[in-house]
Each structure stands twice: as structure tokens, then as C-alpha cells.
């Protein structure tokens, strides 16, 4: 019989207010093998750990159970504490009596009863815990950043500056991302390109950074420290080494119909194109759908004009395979589709635009060369209405339930810039709430109202009706005045909700990174580990984790980089010792386990076994513990129970079941 110690944490009043901790201690002492039990206000504190240490020594404990918060919170703390005091860390079990008990139950008797049962299950399990030793695996000292927007660029630069190799994979022809499409940035109104392009250049010139644009991640295998990634380098049809970026091909290309994605489809571009003037790399790509040569075999004009001889119509997609120790997801966002919002007439009228489209219109490199004009007739709008929260904060299936966070501020920016540049244009903002938490944010919004005369009206717009005269009738309401408003406008700007880049779900699946119902990647802990995915070795940078503005994105990008650097700085990683193991005397060699192993960690060898005196050669399953991640799929498929999972063995789980059902 093992000597077990039970430690019950009050967690201040978090546990003790609902669970009678003394009773748990009292009943713990009646459990088989429990030689020591005590409670303490904060078991995780230094003083709490000292008590555990002393109990281990005094009672020669061979296993401990801590009844406290979730093991996701402090299992590591208590395991380290055990290890420091000479007890194998895997002889520690946590009974989660906070998240799974005190926080959700109100009745003290009921919560206490449940806490006791959870304690008993943990005691029953720890009796069967085996002392496990973590193995080691090497770390590939190279990081992959998926996405080349400001988040990806910043993360890559920070990692590279620390001396590690970084690859950026960007699916567009250039890095830069959403920020490169913006005109000015709040709350300082500095030009977006002016602050972004130096970063892009820095990344491109960095000796430790390799940029794969026009590329996508195809396949990911492996685990923390040892990822193997296939990257599809899409055919560019332009030789990156030869191209000088002179741009003559784009001028001469006769196919000018494709919509310009960079300008949000507000104008067109040539079939061979760089998305914008400051593109990095400054090498165009050929849009295979629009290229006349690639579709009909005729044309070839770009090739004729290219003095560098860089055009190569025979290029094919290429798959390169690289090894990485860490992967950062920085896939960013897009605005939602507005097809379901018929009431705002977005698809009906050219003069109803999204804010991101307004950014392009106001940008000197945009479709109107920076002149604010109606896309329908080119006239200068005199009356502009901004509608906030379009698709944000919606609990129906048309929009998103979250606040997109950036809209209040960019709308104040837009309103201010318009009033500044075109003082005779009236600007009305229909808002539900104005949310401006951030340094200098509320001051910025108040300036729009007080100094620039932007008219803020509380009340969501019900409908935008295009009129025969080309104007737009806005049906709004002023909730503070309790009056309905009919306002004729020349232009309506929709603060469209943002959503994670739709590709992120595919990437999350490849990385086995957890993702929420809104397609935002889940962080390992919402407060304490905000830039890490629960999947080891995968980190989050930028809006893929949740809506954020540029300063926040850059801060998070840096934080993700630090986590990556911390990982790559290690030569070896401790591997999870909770791996599968086959009992050679029970194994049939039937191969069923290998069929379900997602990691290819199970192989077979013919081995001589001594089965109670009978020596024979048998086909036996062998688990490669470096590859095994410990899912347990094999254990269930094994009919003889030969395959078992260390740390979650059949007998351990059955002991828990028995304790709960006792």
C-alpha cells in the first residue's frame, strides 16, 4: 500500500466558501493509504509548497493528491514541488475542486460531497501511478511564421534579431498584409505605409529571414521542436532572381480586366501584377486565370518586353519541405461578406462602401488617387453617413457576436480626416456605443466631435434606400431624442465586422491548434498565456487570436516572438512521458494499433519472448516514444489490452470510475 498525502487548497475563499475543506481532509484520512492530509489557504503559494515538502519528508509519501484548481493551472507547479523533494513528478494527481466544483455549485453540502468524491478518484488513481521519466528531443532552431502582415513581420524580425532563422509564408504576392492597405493610422494619423514599409524592407533584408510569398502551408507533421512543414510555392511565372522589378510588364500587359484585390476590387489591374508599388518582393506574379498566354497560348507580350528575361510560362507549383522548431500563426483578418445585410444596400449601390474600401479611396495610391468621390458618378459627396457595428455584436446568424474593436476608432479617424480635408462635407456617425479604451483614444474621438464637428447620433440605422436621384436615404433613429431620422446622404460607409482569415481553419486543423466557433485561435490561457496555442510549439500573433488594433498587434507579435525565442534557445525539450507502451507478453502483433496511430509511432519487430517459460519468436508492437504523443487511440483498438497508456492506464481510469461510482 502506497503512502499517500492529500492537500486541500482553500484558494482563499474560491474553494473554501463552497467546499467544507476540513471535511474533505477528514474523509481523505479514511481513504486507503492516506497517511497525511491537510488544508491550507493557498497550496500553490511558497508557504503551501513548503508544507507539501515537509509532509513528503516526514511521512515518506509515495504519492500526493492536491485538491485545488484545474490541473491546467497548477499541475506543473505541484509536480515541480514534488520533484524538488525527491518524489517523482508523475506521482502527483490533482483533484479539480475549483473549476469543476466550488465555482459551479452553490450548495455547500453538495459541493463538499462532490469534492470528496473527486478527491477519492484522485487517490484511487495515484495508487496506480507509475513514476515516469520524461525523455528528450532535439529542437530545430528555426521558426515558421504563417502570414506576412504586420503581425508576422514583427514576430519574424524579433525572432531573427535574437539570432534564429525564420521563414515567413505569405499567400499573397507581397508581404504587408492589411496594414499596407490602410491610409492613415489612429490615433496619431501617421501614414500607414510610411511606418510599415521600413519594417517590410527590414524583414526582407534580414540575413535570418527567408520570405516565401505567393506560398501556402500545405502539410504539417511532427511536434514541438520538430515540425516538418510542406510549403507550396505557387507558380509565379516570373523568375525571382532575374526580375529587376522595372514594372514594364505590367504596363504592357493587354489583359487589364481582373479586379484589383489590393484596392478591394474597386478598380482593375493587369494580369501580371505586383499588388502595390512598395511590394516586397518587388517581383510581379502572373494571374493564371487572366493571363492570355497561359489560357490561349497566344500573347507573350510581357516576355517580349522583359529585358531581364525573367518571364517563365512553364513554371509549376513547387513543394518545399522544411523543418521548424516553432510555428507562429499570424493569418490576420478580412471583413465579413455583407450579402446577408440587404437593408444596407451594399450590393445595390456603389456609394455604400465598407470602411476598408474607404481606406483605399482616401489613399493616394488608391482607385481615385486619394480624392474622396462617389464611385457611382465621381462627384464629391457632401453628406456622408457612417454606420457602426455592421455585423458586429450580432447574435443572429448574419453577423458576429463579438465587438470588432477597431471600428469606433477608425471611424473617428475617417470622420476627422474628411472634415479636415473637405470642410464643407457633413459627416454623421450612427453609433450604438462609442468604445475608446486605449491610450489617447477617447481624446481622439472627442476631437472628432469637438474640433471637427462630426455629428454623432446614438441609434443603429435600420435601412439605406437608394433613391432615383442617386442619393441614399438613411432611415435612422436618435434614441436620445426619441426621434426617427430620415437623412439623405451621398455616401454611406459601413463599419463592417472583421473575421479571421477564412484560411485559418484549415491551418488550425493542420497544426491541431484549437479554434473557437468564430474561427479565432484559442490561446493556452486567456490571461496568462495569451500568445500560445494549447498545442505546444504553436504561437499566436495578431488578429488570428482576436480583434486588435495595430499597437496591440505589434505588442502581441513581440510577445509571441519572445515565446518562440525561449523555445528555440533550448537544445533539448523534455518529451511527454505519458506515451503508449505495449506489453510484449500480451501483444498479438495484429497491427490494429498501428492502423489508428496518427503519428506512425508504432512499428513491429520479431522478438524472442519468454512467456512463463515458453520461449518463442513473436511479432510485437513497439512504440517510438519520441513520436508518440499519447492520445491513446491504440489502447482501445487493442483487444488484449497489451497496449496501454502511461499516466492514463486502463487500471488507473478504471480505478477512477470505481471511485466515482462507489
Amino acid at each position, binding site marked *: 500500500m502506497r503512502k499517500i498525502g492529500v492537500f486541500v487548497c482553500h484558494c482563499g475563499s474560491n474553494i473554501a466558501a463552497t467546499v467544507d475543506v476540513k471535511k474533505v481532509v477528514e474523509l481523505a484520512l479514511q481513504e486507503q493509504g492516506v497517511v497525511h492530509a491537510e488544508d491550507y489557504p493557498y497550496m500553490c503559494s511558497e508557504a503551501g509548497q513548503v508544507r507539501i515538502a515537509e509532509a513528503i519528508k516526514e511521512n515518506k509519501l509515495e504519492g500526493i493528491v492536491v485538491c485545488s484548481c484545474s490541473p491546467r493551472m497548477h499541475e506543473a507547479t505541484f509536480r515541480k514541488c514534488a520533484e524538488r523533494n525527491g518524489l517523482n513528478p508523475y506521482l502527483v494527481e490533482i483533484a479539480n475542486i475549483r473549476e469543476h466544483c466550488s465555482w459551479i455549485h452553490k450548495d455547500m453540502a453538495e459541493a463538499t460531497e462532490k469534492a470528496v468524491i473527486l478527491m477519492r478518484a484522485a487517490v484511487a488513481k495515484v495508487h496506480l501511478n507509475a513514476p515516469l521519466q520524461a525523455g528528450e528531443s532535439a529542437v530545430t532552431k528555426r521558426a515558421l511564421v504563417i502570414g506576412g502582415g504586420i503581425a508576422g513581420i514583427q514576430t519574424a524580425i524579433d525572432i531573427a534579431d535574437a539570432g534564429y532563422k525564420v521563414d515567413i509564408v505569405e499567400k499573397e504576392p507581397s508581404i504587408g498584409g492589411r496594414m499596407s492597405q490602410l491610409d492613415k493610422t489612429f490615433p496619431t494619423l501617421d501614414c500607414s505605409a510610411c511606418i510599415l514599409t521600413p519594417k517590410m524592407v527590414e524583414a526582407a533584408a534580414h540575413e535570418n529571414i527567408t520570405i516565401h510569398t505567393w506560398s501556402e502551408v500545405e502539410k504539417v507533421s511532427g511536434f514541438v521542436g520538430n515540425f516538418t512543414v510542406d510549403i507550396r510555392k505557387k507558380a509565379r511565372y516570373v523568375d525571382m532572381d532575374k526580375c529587376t522589378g522595372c514594372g514594364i510588364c505590367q504596363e504592357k500587359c493587354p489583359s487589364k480586366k481582373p479586379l484589383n484585390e489590393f484596392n478591394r476590387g474597386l478598380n482593375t489591374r493587369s494580369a501580371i501584377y505586383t499588388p502595390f508599388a512598395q511590394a516586397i518582393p518587388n517581383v510581379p506574379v502572373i494571374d493564371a486565370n487572366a493571363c492570355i498566354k497561359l489560357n490561349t497560348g497566344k500573347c507573350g507580350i510581357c516576355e517580349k518586353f522583359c529585358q531581364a528575361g525573367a518571364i517563365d510560362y512553364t513554371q509549376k507549383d513547387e513543394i518545399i519541405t522544411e523543418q521548424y522548431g516553432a510555428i507562429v500563426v499570424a493569418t490576420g483578418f478580412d471583413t465579413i461578406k455583407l450579402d446577408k445585410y440587404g*437593408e444596407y444596400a451594399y450590393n445595390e449601390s456603389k456609394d455604400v462602401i465598407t470602411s476598408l474600401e474607404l481606406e483605399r479611396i482616401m489613399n493616394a495610391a488608391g482607385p481615385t488617387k486619394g480624392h474622396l468621390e462617389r464611385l457611382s458618378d465621381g462627384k464629391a459627396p457632401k453628406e456622408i453617413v457612417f454606420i457602426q*457595428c455592421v455585423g458586429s*455584436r*450580432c*447574435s*443572429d446568424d*448574419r*453577423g458576429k457576436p463579438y465587438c470588432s474593436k477597431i471600428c469606433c476608432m477608425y471611424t473617428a479617424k475617417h470622420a476627422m480626416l474628411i472634415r479636415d480635408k473637405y470642410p464643407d462635407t457633413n459627416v454623421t456617425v450612427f453609433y*450604438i456605443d462609442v468604445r475608446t479604451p486605449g491610450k489617447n483614444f477617447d481624446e481622439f474621438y472627442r476631437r472628432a466631435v469637438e474640433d471637427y464637428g462630426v455629428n454623432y447620433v*446614438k*441609434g*443603429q*440605422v*435600420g*435601412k439605406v434606400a437608394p433613391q432615383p436621384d442617386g442619393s441614399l436615404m438613411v*432611415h*435612422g*433613429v436618435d*434614441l436620445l431624442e*426619441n426621434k*426617427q*431620422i430620415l437623412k439623405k446622404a451621398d455616401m454611406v460607409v459601413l463599419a463592417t465586422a472583421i473575421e479571421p482569415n477564412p484560411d485559418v481553419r484549415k491551418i488550425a486543423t493542420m497544426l491541431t491548434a484549437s479554434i473557437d466557433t468564430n474561427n479565432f485561435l484559442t490561446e493556452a490561457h486567456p490571461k496568462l498565456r495569451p500568445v500560445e496555442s494549447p498545442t505546444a510549439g504553436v504561437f499566436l500573433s495578431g488578429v488570428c487570436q482576436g480583434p486588435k488594433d495595430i499597437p496591440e498587434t505589434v505588442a502581441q507579435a513581440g510577445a509571441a516572438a519572445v515565446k518562440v525565442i525561449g523555445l528555440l534557445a533550448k537544445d533539448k525539450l523534455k518529451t511527454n512521458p505519458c506515451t503508449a507502451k505495449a506489453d510484449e507478453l500480451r501483444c498479438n502483433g495484429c497491427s490494429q494499433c498501428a492502423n489508428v496511430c496518427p503519428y506512425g509511432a508504432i512499428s513491429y519487430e520479431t522478438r524472442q519472448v519468454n512467456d512463463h517459460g515458453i520461449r518463442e519468436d513473436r511479432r510485437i508492437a513497439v512504440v517510438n516514444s519520441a513520436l508518440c504523443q499519447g492520445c491513446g487511440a491504440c489502447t482501445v483498438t487493442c483487444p488484449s489490452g497489451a497496449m496501454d497508456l502511461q499516466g492514463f492506464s486502463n487500471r488507473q481510469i478504471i480505478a477512477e470510475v470505481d471511485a466515482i461510482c462507489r
Partner: protein
Amino acid sequence: MSKVEQIKEISGVNPLKCMKCGKCSASCPSFNEMDIKPHQFVTYVINDDVEALAESKSAWKCLSCFACIERCPRDVKPGKLIDAARQILIRQRGQEGLSPDEIPALLDEEMPQQLLMSAFRKYRR
């Protein structure tokens, strides 16, 4: 069952979901005729004042055009609340309502046929 419970059950609406955006009032064609505006309906339910809602002009000024139901971003659907208020009133009246036999006498030339038909469709359940 209290009136509040009743109105919640009939409408299937959770008034607490409302974020007071006012899109319903912005969309309402009868806004100016109403004494209680669509975005205020939820407040009456939350404040346990269904009586006032049922006796308001709004109850009979709502055209059931469903613009607010269609556009409400929070699934609150004020149109359903006011319809439920009307239902409560109708149920209280019970058999005091008009019977089809009494209607011909009340008709005049101006009354559109469609109004009658939709009224029948709506209230003859």
C-alpha cells in the same frame, strides 16, 4: 403565470439580449404613431409593466411588417413582443372579440379587402 412570463413564453423572446441599438425604431414605419417606441418595448417587459405595453397605442399601431424582427441583430425581435402583448389582450377578452358575423355591418367602401383577409389569417387561430 405572471404577465411577464406569459409575454416571454408567447414571444419566445429573451428581452435581456437587447443591447439598445435602436435598429428596430430606425426601421419602424409606424414609429411616429407609437407612444412607446419599438426599442422601448423590452424595457417595459424587463420592468414588469406589461399592462402599459398592452394598453399602449403602439400595440395597435404595429403593422406586423416584421422589419424589426428581420433586422434585429440580437434576436430580440420587438415585433414579437408587441404581438405577444396583443395576444395577452385578446386572450383576456376571450369571446368578447368580434365574430365573423358582426363584421359585414362594420365594413365600408374604403376598407381594403386585403386588410380583412390578413386580419383573419392573423387572429383566427
